[in-house]
């Protein structure tokens, strides 16, 4: 195969449910691999909050809509001679097929690398999939389309197994359902045929309760095929794998069954003649005696990202090299640097992945789990055994989320068993905790849980063991509880002491975790991977380091309001630190991301982002390097900032930032005082204890005002009052007093990112929000540079932001939200961290904002960084950011924009011309919204 000159890589666009940071990870690995081979890359993506869209990664980067029309323009202008379609998720794959269908690839002589599009079509098309899989003698779920009860019963009787009946052309599957006996089947068939407007039903073997297994496989052009990882879904068939708890390696199946499934996956990838990565999903009967092929994804995926992080084997990088024509056996082993890439990782630990759902933001949403994925992100825990891995994954979900011991009082399990166990244990986001609570209160046992949920008893028995172990925490040596996997916080709760007391006891007793290497080979060969997880086990000496290390705290699972932009920031920060000649250490727990690629840093600790794990890593790094590490909190979103207080309490200095500064910005009164001292206008606000107080506040402030309960939870109850009528209708509702009433300044809302070295500041760009104040800035369209503000208005706003940064004593980065109205600049809030806007500013201005921030945080001056003071001159390009939602996937959620953020991702339109930039952004959004 001749080597391509320039390869077009299509990204996956904005983050939506089902398509998250994993494709940034895949794209970054692929682009770096291709460019490492001397091949040019041409990258197209509409999502600016990605590492891949930086030119030092993507090569020639086009930020623009992911549409056939735009891609054709790009191809015509930049003339790539090859296309790598399998790294941009379903979006990238669909576009590649569409470009082929439209004749674009042929017209411009662009050949497809890696996986042939015929294979893609075969895997994606229902009929093609059936022909492909059955053609190689592998089983798919048996099914028949019938138009009479008699025909249906012939199929059911021949199958002699439970079936599911799906009437054709009915909404929401009305009239269908499961049938476990022939009698039920006869009834369901009759009902289903009656319900279908065309009198047709699909009868299919029911795989309900079968176990779900996935294999991630790679194949090269010389037909070498390897299985990188087999993974087991804890939730049986019926729950989308993105919403399932996933465990690797496979724990419950005997070797002959594992081998049979592995062979099936390899057979499929060979039949597809696929050159690259592929995901094969299989259903296995609980006794292991039978299986079916459920789905084949001929591309890298969320699961392949998980498999890469679970094993240390970089699937996307190797898949990209395979697409260039490299053979697995010729590539070096990516972990050991010698040997070859043709091997299957052996792991000597267990990983558990937990989904992160957005239901905390949307209490009205339907929380049931099924075939439609609802999670926005995920966290992974690595432990020597299942229990510590699961407990770490739980601690990683979010420090303030549901811990191991959480129970909903509404379940009432402390005094009675649930009336209907089956209903209580239907798949929902809280099923894990429901099972734990049932076990804890003794209402049921592991085998009953397994029976009711269909979860393999191996897992329910482990959960029961873990619940039983809770009782031994008090009174037993602390080390035992730590070895069992319990976090300091859980031990504290169980023992009735504050978490800090547990840490103190640990320090006194010298109980600290050791760090183990993820080496792909279970210790068989010396490996170089700087990839570690903690375990209460014998220390494994990591490589000596004589450099001072800088720890970058990541942002954990992707959730609404804290997305991939923080991964972008974390990765750029790590790279900047490495360039400074220091060791860049990353702590994070999101397996989808670039920041958890051990190639992106000097040492990666795959750990929860809570006080316990972060302090443990800090202690370990101190011991390793002989010096206190710098800790950078500013790039990990609120997750990282929330650690500040505990780190300060533990005397850990935070680079460029103090806990005091964070407190000032978070405390309304203190922040107002600061603004007053700086003679900067802040929003006027009052507290209203009752309707009289509310009316008084409004007459003082003048309409419109924003009112919110002073105990705001998740943005609920926030209202904008524009008229006396609005006030009256609000008063007729059920109000939780007191209310906070803020003046609503009518003007232009702006987002200002300030880089400060402690003495001077620079604002690289200002974003003007295009939606009215009251719409969450994350959900608002925005433009950089501002289109309706004069230079002097912008300078005044920048000056206010800059002075806040200096007065807070910040070195690094500060985000300020303000409203500009005529000569007035009203500062709404300040956050002493990188915000959602950083990647946009970076892409629009072409400046490495994060590197400047991290260098200042570590002591450099703006002069040393090479940045001039004050508001930077306008960039040449106009950048328009538009939000993209995917909440239409969540039934029961109101998608009207408001003060609560609802979008999951964003796109950017770039042009020298504002109108064109707006059009590009709008087109880019349209490419990802469902047609209505």
């Amino acid at each position, binding site marked *: 195969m001749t080597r391509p000159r320039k390869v077009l890589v299509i990204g996956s666009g904005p983050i939506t449910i089902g398509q998250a940071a994993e494709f940034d990870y895949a794209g970054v690995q692929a682009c770096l691999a291709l460019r490492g081979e001397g091949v040019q890359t041409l990258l197209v993506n509409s999502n600016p909050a990605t590492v891949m869209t930086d030119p030092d990664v993507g090569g020639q980067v086009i930020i623009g809509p992911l549409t056939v029309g735009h891609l054709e323009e790009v191809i015509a202008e930049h003339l790539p001679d090859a296309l790598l379609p399998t790294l941009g998720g379903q979006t990238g794959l669909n576009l590649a097929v569409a470009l082929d269908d439209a004749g674009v690839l042929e017209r411009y002589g662009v050949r497809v690398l890696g996986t042939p599009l015929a294979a893609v079509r075969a895997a994606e098309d229902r009929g093609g999939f059936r022909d492909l899989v059955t053609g190689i003698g592998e089983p798919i779920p048996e099914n028949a389309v019938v138009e009479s009860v008699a025909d249906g019963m012939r199929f059911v009787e021949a199958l002699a197994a439970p079936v599911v009946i799906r009437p054709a052309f009915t909404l929401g599957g009305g009239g269908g359902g499961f049938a476990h006996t022939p009698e039920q089947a006869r009834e369901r068939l009759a009902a289903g045929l009656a319900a279908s407007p065309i009198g047709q039903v699909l009868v299919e073997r029911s795989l309900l309760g079968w176990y779900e297994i996935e294999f991630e496989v790679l194949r090269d052009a*010389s*037909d*070498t095929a*390897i*299985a990188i990882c087999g993974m087991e879904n804890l939730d049986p068939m019926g729950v989308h794998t993105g919403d399932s708890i996933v465990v690797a*390696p*496979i*724990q*419950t*199946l*005997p*070797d*002959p069954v*594992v*081998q049979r499934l*592995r*062979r099936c996956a*390899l057979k499929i990838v060979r039949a597809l003649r696929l050159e690259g990565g592929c995901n094969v999903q299989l259903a296995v009967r609980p006794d292991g005696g039978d299986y079916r092929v459920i789905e084949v994804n001929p591309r890298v995926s969320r699961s392949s990202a998980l498999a890469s992080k679970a094993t240390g084997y970089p699937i996307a990088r190797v898949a990209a090299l395979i697409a260039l024509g490299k*053979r*697995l*056996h010729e590539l070096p*082993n990516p972990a050991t640097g010698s*040997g*070859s890439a*043709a*091997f*299957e*990782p*052996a*792991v*000597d*630990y*267990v990983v558990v992945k937990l989904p992160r759902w957005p239901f905390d933001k949307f209490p009205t949403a339907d929380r049931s789990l099924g075939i439609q994925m609802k999670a926005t992100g995920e966290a992974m825990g690595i432990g*020597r*055994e*299942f229990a510590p891995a699961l407990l770490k994954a739980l601690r990683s979900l979010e420090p303030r989320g549901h811990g191991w011991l959480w129970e909903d009082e509404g379940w009432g399990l402390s005094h009675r068993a649930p009336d209907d166990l089956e209903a209580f244990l239907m798949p929902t986001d809280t099923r894990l905790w429901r099972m734990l609570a049932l076990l804890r209160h003794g209402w049921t046992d592991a*085998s009953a849980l*397994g029976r009711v949920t269909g979860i*393999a*008893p*191996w897992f329910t*028995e482990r959960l029961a063991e873990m619940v039983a172990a809770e009782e031994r925490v008090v009174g037993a040596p602390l080390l035992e509880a730590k070895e069992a996997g319990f976090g300091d916080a859980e031990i504290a709760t169980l023992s009735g002491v504050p978490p800090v007391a547990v840490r103190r006891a640990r320090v006194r007793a010298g109980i600290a975790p050791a760090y*183990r290497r993820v080496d792909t*080979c*279970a*210790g*068989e*060969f*010396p490996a170089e991977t700087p990839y570690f997880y903690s375990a209460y*086990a*014998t220390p*494994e000496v990591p490589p000596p380091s004589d450099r001072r290390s800088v720890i970058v705290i990541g942002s954990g699972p992707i959730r609404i309001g804290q997305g991939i932009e923080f991964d972008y920031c974390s990765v750029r920060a790590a790279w900047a630190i490495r360039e400074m000649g220091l060791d860049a250490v990353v702590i994070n727990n999101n397996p989808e991301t670039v920041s958890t690629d051990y190639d992106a840093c000097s040492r990666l600790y795959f750990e929860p982002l809570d006080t316990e794990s972060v302090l443990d890593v800090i202690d370990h790094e101190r011991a390793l390097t002989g010096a206190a590490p710098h800790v950078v909190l500013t790039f990990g979103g609120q997750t990282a900032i929330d650690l500040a207080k505990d780190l300060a309490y533990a005397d850990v200095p935070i680079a460029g930032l103090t806990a005091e500064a964070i407190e000032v910005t978070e405390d309304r009164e203190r922040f107002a005082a600061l603004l007053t001292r700086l003679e900067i206008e802040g929003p006027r606000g009052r507290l209203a204890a009752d309707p009289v107080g509310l009316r008084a506040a409004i007459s003082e402030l003048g309409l419109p005002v924003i009112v919110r309960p002073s105990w705001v939870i998740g943005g609920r109850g926030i209202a904008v009052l524009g008229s006396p009528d609005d006030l009256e209708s609000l008063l007729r509702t059920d109000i939780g007093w007191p209310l906070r009433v803020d003046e609503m300044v009518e003007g232009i809302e702006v987002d200002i990112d300030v880089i400060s070295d402690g003495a001077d500041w620079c604002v690289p760009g200002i974003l003007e929000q295009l939606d009215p104040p009251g719409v969450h800035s994350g959900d608002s369209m925005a433009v950089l540079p501002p289109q309706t503000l004069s230079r002097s208005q912008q300078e005044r706003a920048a000056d206010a932001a800059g002075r806040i940064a200096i007065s807070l004593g910040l070195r690094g980065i500060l985000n300020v939200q303000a409203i500009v109205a005529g000569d007035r600049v009203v500062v709404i809030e300040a956050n002493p961290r990188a915000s959602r806007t950083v990647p946009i500013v970076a892409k629009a201005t072409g400046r490495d904002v994060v590197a400047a921030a991290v260098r200042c945080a570590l002591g450099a001056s703006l002069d040393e960084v090479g940045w001039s003071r004050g508001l930077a001159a306008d960039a040449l390009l106009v950048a328009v950011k538009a939000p993209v939602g995917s909440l239409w996937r969540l039934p029961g959620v109101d998608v009207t924009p408001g003060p609560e953020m609802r979008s999951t991702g964003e796109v950017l339109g770039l042009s020298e011309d504002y109108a064109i930039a707006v059009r590009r952004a709008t087109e880019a959004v349209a490419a990802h919204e469902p047609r209505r």
Partner: protein
Amino acid sequence: MSVHTRTIATTPPAIERSASFSRPGLLALEGGLVLRGSLRGAHVPAEGDLIFTTAATGWGEILTDPSYAGQVVILTHPMAGSYRIDPAELESARVHARALVVTRLVTPPAGPGRSLEEMLSEAGIPAIEGIDTRSLTLALRNGAARRAVIRAVSEGSRRAGADDAALVAAAGAVAPWESVDHVATVATRRAHVVPPAGERRARAVLVDYGVKRSLLAALAGRGLEITVLPHDASAADVAAHAPELVVLSPGPGDPSRMAPQIAVAGELAQRALSGGPPILGICLGHQLLALAAGAETRRLAVGHHGGNHAVIETATVRVDIGAHNHEVAVREGPALAAAGYRVSHLDLNDGTVEGLAHASGRVGSVQFHPEGAPGPIDASRVFDLAVAQATA
């Protein structure tokens, strides 16, 4: 108890067999390392050579594979025994490994089959649980000497560590693995016939140095009627059955001490080159053929045990992931070429010789296990080719 003469217990000793019972135990290495854990399975002493396998499943297969005779097997995967073992998964009628070293021995869910612990108890061998198998594996990889003993903590010892020196000394006194005739303890003593599955396509003789059921099943499944002969069968004994294929089986131990078998392998190879039946050597059988050809074998710094190594067939550039289980490998050297052999397969990880082919095409051998069990059977065309040759 003398290790030299100890036969593997076929009946459980009269001691505790309770699945949940454990008592403190020690694992001592001759180099001085002493690790504390709990004894599970049969609470009896054990000793042997430490090796580690990276296979995450297949405990029944591992324990009953005769090639593990004399070895104390470390499982690198920390959770062992998670599923019940189906008798159909077993590789022989007996447990051959001396002991297991595990991080955690899991009690599997109820159901048919035996738990790993029940299997250990019935076979009268112990597992020592609670050992950090990764750090032990790293120690072995970094050159720790491998003889080891497992003992219960004696009732009388009050001070932790009181027995350590004695145990380390006991480990140093364990008969070296290389010095023991393991084959004689595991291989069949009488000839027998394994019928083909389905129609007979050819007759084969397999010389049994410690064969696995999976290997026999793979051959029988391809239509071979297999006469299994004891390890001390002569070339004439083999020829007497007029086979169309001769298979030299896998087995335990160091091949360089097996002079009679090497001689037989050499004679069979000579016959193969002069009109006799073709030969397929597997694992130990492969090593014997190499030694007969004048090559040398060496003990690997770290043996291959697991199901994840890739082997490349040099002539076809075909790469297969396979099951490996060998402590010893053939040294590449001029003797092989002089005898007409070329290296047909290489391990892609460390370059170990994994297969030999004679220029005549009449003698071929592989170091790895195309029959898997546990592990992949991606390279099972080795059998197809051999059977094709036998029926040609």
